[in-house]
């Protein structure tokens, strides 16, 4: 992925003037690593982002172990390591690793909570339990992270098994542009559900990161 041409001078890169001993490593889920890196660059924080594969979400029992291994590998080279994951379906296993290694993580159950706020997400599910959430990342990668992972590319007839009880898609739009809007509409279409767009921006993610790095 190319770096933003408008990125400020104080980037996260390999600036020799600040040895990594004074820097922080942010272990981030691949599904949020890009907006994290953008925020870090814009704010000029001495942080390097280390993404883990986003598809770990479909094997959530592996997330805690992967974070643990990477944190141990990064620790000698950084002043601090923090975790850019919410609970993410680890059902507490990630918290156990964070406790063990003294790491902080993002708040909430999922990145959806981080983008929109936990109360708001709860309200979406209260209004319609059959709500399926998308983020910019999921919209962009829908064919790979949703359709292929769920086997809908090979067995389209499974659509009913997965989404038969769902009533709508809610896209938590962070940086919606025409292209993303088109992709979100196409994604909802392919699973046969109406689309609601809720513009969340990245402000909550930014405050959550700020709190994490403080």
């Amino acid at each position: 992925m190319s770096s933003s041409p408008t990125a400020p001078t104080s980037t996260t890169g390999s600036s020799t003037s600040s040895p990594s001993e004074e820097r922080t490593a942010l272990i981030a889920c691949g599904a949020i690593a890009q907006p994290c890196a953008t925020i870090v660059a814009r704010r000029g924080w001495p942080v390097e982002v280390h993404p883990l594969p986003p598809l770990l979400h479909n094997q959530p029992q592996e997330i805690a172990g992967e974070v643990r291994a990477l944190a141990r590998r990064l620790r000698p080279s950084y002043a601090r390591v923090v975790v850019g994951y919410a609970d993410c379906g680890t059902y507490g296993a990630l918290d156990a690793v964070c406790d063990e290694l003294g790491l902080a993580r993002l708040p909430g159950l999922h990145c959806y909570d981080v983008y929109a706020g936990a109360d708001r997400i709860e309200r979406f599910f209260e209004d319609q339990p059959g709500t399926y959430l998308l983020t910019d990342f999921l919209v962009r990668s829908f064919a790979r992270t949703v359709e292929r992972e769920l086997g809908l590319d090979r067995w389209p007839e499974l659509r009913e098994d997965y989404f038969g009880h769902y009533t709508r898609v809610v896209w938590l739009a962070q940086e919606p542009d025409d292209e993303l809007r088109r992709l979100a509409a196409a994604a909802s279409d392919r699973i046969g559900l109406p689309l609601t767009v809720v513009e969340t921006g990245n402000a909550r993610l930014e405050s959550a990161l700020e709190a994490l790095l403080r």
Partner: protein
Amino acid sequence: MTPQEILQGLYDETLVGNAPRVLELTEEGLSNAMEPQTLLFDALIPSLEEVGARFERGDFFVPEMLIAGRAMAGAMERLRPLLAETGVATVGKFLMGTVKGDVHDIGKNLVNIMLEGAGFEVIDLGVQVAPEKFVAAIEEHQPDIVGFSAFLTTTMPMFKANINALEKAGLRNEVVVMVGGAPVTQEYADAVGADGYAADASACVKRAKALLDARRTKVPA
């Protein structure tokens, strides 16, 4: 085809989720005078158990499991009336549902298939089942066991809500309560006061049978 070849074929084709072929082989077995139970216990169930084991090992993911489940369910449709005719008493009545607020149901549906294969009469209330609905269905169907399935951290507390509703309706001692779903653990099941928990479909069948045996020896019918 020899009976052995038919059983092997059923096992292999269920494993890869080839539903049309599984149905053909089921027909072929029946027209060769093979017992429905033989097809079920010597091919279909072992195959779905292997599917579960591969899922546990990470060799299969959800879609592979779903298409295998579908193939087995297709054969079950064909075998169900025949199994009923054989007059074998059902092992027990199992009422199942995904709790209120939750619409994940893949795991629940697989458990249902295995329970049915093992001789349970299964009544599936579907997804988003509210406590009142569980209570009404228990009164109506008088099941031996009621199963609650939940997949989200935010919906697991419904187990407790359901159990409270059963207590309030004076039904708690009438049924065995089992709970399950990806986030559930034995500790959690104990904490909410369920009678049983199982991590997967095969384990659920074993546990359900054991719980009923224990209950039947305790309370003679």
